């Protein structure tokens, strides 16, 4: 039973991170379409922000591993 609750927790963490990264991706695409000459800066910052969100999801993931 413990395993399935952990699975739900992991799923919730991934939903949050997915929403966040999706939002960053959509805004970055919009900005690139609006200002194609700034594509390098936008891409680097997009990856950086996605990495920060990923970090929060990873902490949730590892904590759920440790609880399991």
């Amino acid at each position: 039973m413990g395993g399935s609750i952990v699975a739900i927790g992991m799923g919730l963490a991934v939903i949050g991170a997915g929403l966040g990264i999706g939002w960053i991706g959509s805004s970055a695409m919009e900005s690139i379409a609006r200002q194609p000459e700034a594509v390098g800066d936008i891409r680097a910052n997009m990856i950086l922000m996605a990495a920060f969100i990923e970090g929060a999801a990873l902490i949730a993931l590892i904590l759920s591993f440790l609880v399991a």
Partner: protein
Amino acid sequence: MLRFFLSTIYILAFALIGLAHDNHDHGDGHATICGEAAHHEFNAGDNAIHHISDANVYSIGPIQIPLPVILYAPDKGWDFFMASKFHADLIGHGDGHVAYNGYVLDGGSVKRIVDAGFPAGEVQISGVIHKDVTMANGKEQEAAFVCYNNNLYKTDAKSTADAGLFGGGITSFYDFSITKNVTSMAIVLAFLSWLFLSVARAAKKNEGKAPTGLQNFMEPFVGFIQDEVAIPFLGDKADKFLPFLLSIFFFILGLNLFGQIPFFGGSNVTGNLAVTAVLAIITFFITNINGNKDYWGHLFTAPGTPWFVKLILVPVELLGLFIKPVTLMLRLFANITAGHMVILIFVSFIFIFGKSGESIPGAMGGVVGAGLLTLFMMAIELVVAFVQAFVFTILTASYIGAATEEHHHDEEHAH
């Protein structure tokens, strides 16, 4: 022609995996207490974890090359020997047939027999079986048992420094061996040293002229780290930290790509928590040793905020000091491990559809499906290898940049 040849080898290799597993199952049929070893069920998750873990043998395809073993047990002292002492099959899964000084080789990893009554020296064993046992905290956990003289001897989990995530942990002995991961790191380090020394020599010789050959290939990478990572985050201090950023980028990239080579070790170095922890600790120390007055001042006093906000902000900032390297460690570990695991689960389709060698048409379907899915996954992993090396470097640069930045006082209220 070459492409056709390579893809044929690729598909054949997958077919061989199916055969290898088939052979493995018929291998240990003992009518003793160890008899149950022959009837184990195929578990894709366990199989994947076994293949991404560190090992005391280096596997090239199905061939297991023994590596030096360095062990220390507090009650026994040091042991130095080659893993060939365990007499594991040259082609197999790295299961030893001999226990040496109370150590056995199980699935490529050295484990220690807990029972002090087990004879020292070389002892012929009839196999290792895995059973679930109830731990002291009431949880079920798999443990390995050695069959010897029709008795079962429990072994300790293997010795790893990854907080026991994959069944290892700090046990009754310490494994300082030259393992598969250490060997891979040495190979990558030797290659990187050769690459950069020759490029540096060429750069010195060709000064003022257009770069050629290898130098031409490497310069965009170095220039990318310099222009996109070091200078935007570090400004005029970029030159001071550029060597560190370049080392960390190429070390991670080299190991990521080395781990992608199929059937050649399949080492998962950057997907090992201990390795990424050391990389993150190095970043942590470089960031905080170079932190200036403003950085520490901001950390402890949070200027420009009312006192009740400070009560919350200062502990959060102090926690953040440690959370940053922890996320750095987990991000690289989780991304690379997840990639390797997905590939291994796809390969496991061969055995799931083929029912461990019972259904040949199922296995053949699995070979085609697994081959295509693995190719797709490897293409993604190639991108991930670059992105994760880049993310680790850019985050390191941003942490160092935040610690060494000269603050202007009119900006301070914006933080």
